[in-house]
């Protein structure tokens, strides 16, 4: 018996959007409701690229763009025809409990607080010595650095490392210079996260991180903007480079740690898995991800109109675009 429902894996950031679409899709069409597992973007892509056929997922959600290495892996396993659908934007927020003081951070502060290696006063790279936020920046409160964030399977983690950490890292000219000379080392320095307990890998469940923040005023969490929206009563975002993450600041790209959200579809499964085409259609519809779409209620930051048109046509035709 071949599978008669769509199987979706992937990003926990996209999960709350995808579930809403899936549920509506199931209730308003004759198709079954897709099954969605939250595995993180990296984990999802890994499963997605494992091959074609019933046993593998049809769609994976991702909170970052697919990497070249992943495209390669897919190809190696016979997954050649992939459709990329961009659904909107998201900001990565650093947030803490409303009961505590709000943070004002620069990217460099973030880097110094979370990275594994940081330059000391003389510019030599050393193991991160900072134990409290105040040591990082005297303007910050004197509390222990305790950042709850996602593990490497997560796209949020990748985006956080690339945008926030590397962004802060680059502000040191001597490290920036490294990029030209030793790219490998540059990456290792700028994207490695500390492992001495300051950064706690809290699993793929962003809701769980929010719950834990609410209970622990000292902790700072890293997760997608949509979770902030839903939990505005419990947690507050940190202000990064003077800009608070809001609908507009992320949409305009003003907020420094913002990224696009995607999902990837196996074109090969188009004719076999009933409803696949229709699901993509529903997801890319104006009703869902348009300016006033129902996903914006859930905290998705919509695409610009012309960009949406492109996505829409890709979704309609479902032609491989990678």
């Amino acid at each position, binding site marked *: 018996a071949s599978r008669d*429902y769509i199987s979706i894996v992937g990003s926990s950031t996209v999960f709350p959007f995808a579930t*809403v679409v899936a*549920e509506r899709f199931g209730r308003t069409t004759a198709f079954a409701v897709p099954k969605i*597992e*939250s595995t993180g973007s990296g984990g999802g892509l890994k499963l997605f690229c494992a091959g074609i056929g019933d046993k593998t997922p049809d769609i994976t959600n991702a909170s970052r763009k697919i990497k070249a290495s992943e495209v390669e892996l897919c190809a190696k396993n016979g997954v050649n025809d992939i459709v990329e659908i961009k659904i909107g934007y998201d900001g990565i927020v650093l947030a803490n409990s409303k009961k505590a003081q709000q943070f004002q951070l620069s990217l460099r502060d973030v880097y110094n607080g979370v990275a594994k290696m940081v330059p000391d006063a003389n510019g030599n790279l050393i193991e991160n010595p900072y134990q409290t936020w105040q040591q990082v920046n005297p303007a910050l409160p004197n509390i222990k650095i305790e950042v709850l964030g996602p593990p490497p399977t997560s796209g949020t983690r990748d985006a956080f490392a690339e945008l926030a950490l590397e962004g802060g890292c680059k502000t040191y000219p001597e490290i920036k210079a490294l990029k030209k000379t030793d790219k490998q080392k540059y990456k290792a320095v700028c994207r490695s996260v500390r492992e001495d307990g300051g950064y706690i890998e809290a699993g793929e469940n962003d809701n769980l991180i929010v719950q834990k923040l609410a209970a622990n005023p000292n902790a700072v969490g890293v997760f997608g903007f949509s979770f902030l929206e*839903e*939990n505005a*009563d419990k947690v507050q975002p940190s202000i990064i480079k003077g800009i608070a993450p809001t609908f507009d600041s992320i949409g305009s790209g003003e907020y420094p740690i913002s990224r696009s959200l995607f999902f990837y579809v196996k074109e090969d499964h188009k004719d076999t898995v009933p409803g696949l085409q229709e699901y993509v259609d529903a997801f890319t519809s104006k009703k869902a991800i348009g300016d006033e779409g129902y996903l914006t209620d859930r905290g998705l930051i919509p695409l610009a109109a012309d960009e949406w048109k492109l996505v829409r046509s890709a979704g309609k035709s479902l032609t491989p675009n990678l």
Partner: protein
Amino acid sequence: MTDILNQIAKTKQQKVRASLAKRKAQESRFRYYGIISISAAILFLVVLLSAIVSQGYTAFYTTEIKLDISLDKETLDLAEGELTQQALFQADYSRVLREAIKQEIAISGRKERKALYSFISTGAEYDLRDMVVAQPSLLGQNLSYWAQAGDLFNQYNKGNVDASVEEGSRSFKNQQIGWYKQLANEGRVRTVFNRNFFTNGDSRDAELAGIWGATVGSFYTLLVCFLISFPIGVAAATYLEEFAPKNKWTEMIEININNLAAVPSIVFGLLGLAIFLNLADLPRSAPLVGGLVLSLMTLPTIIISSRAAIKAVPPSIKDAALGVGASKVQSVTHHVLPVAMPGMLTGTIIGMAQALGETAPLIMIGMVAFIVDVPQGPLDAATALPVQIYLWAENPEKGFAENTSAAIMVLLAFLAFMNTCAVLLRKRLERRW
């Protein structure tokens, strides 16, 4: 050498009496420790249960808002001409509802609009749709319709939102409270039994989420578990107890089975992942795999309790059968198994009850997905009751908190039911010799 015994005899009475007061105090103190311990344990049970019940019972009812809707084609976004079932199915019912509520409450601006629209659950659309599809003659009519309320509205109506909290840290804003009061004063709000909770699968909307999907998933999982572990367990126990020679090997097997019964369930989850998913290539998230994993877990339990039940059959009955010329197999099938069956069944039910409450191994094999549709068979993707509880417990929406507790109540009810069955079965079938 003094005769100490005589000496004792003389002073005994007095000494015994002297020691009495202290010993009696000790006695009653010891007793109190026991009473305190039991009370503590039972107290905790009561606290746990009452916390769950007090938090969960509200999930059994839900809120509806009375709206005066007009089902004209224009609002429904229906094209002129032939009205197919298909067209009716896809009409825009949310618009109908939104228009209707806008008539009751005056609003302006996107923000207020959003705030007001959240009063109505998306579930109301689907209900209305199903009503119209079933009864196309309603088209063009104006009628008053009880619409399922949205989560926050529902929560506020049930008193789960504390309005005294500062507005900023509360999702249900003061303006919405004002609107609520207005609707309530007009008699447009009512509280009814929450059918959704018992008939729906999972949902992202707390007011629509139900446990039926998880219940059916649990059912299939347990069914597979039972079909595998019961026959194999009973047959293995019978062989080991009645036929296997008693030697080092069987002793080793016995020790191993006992040990396996205490292996943490998560390890069985690992096994399921490695063997059933990766090696045998069975579908992820399927109750079939869940049942297989759980049956590995219950098998030792069933073997142990079945062996105990067989052991408890008085050997005199076997002797009697052998004495009139029955063969060994006959004495076992005619006498031992029927007599041991209640015990075996009880052990099986208890093992099943444990399996019903297991979460960790199911997480390992992917039964934690978001699954809305109720599974139709053991190969469909499904979750199980405890996993659903786990998933809901981590949802941030207020409505899921009560759903979680209510699901726990349902799960406990099932467990209580199974255990009662076990007890009754034991009582009913137990024979005295």
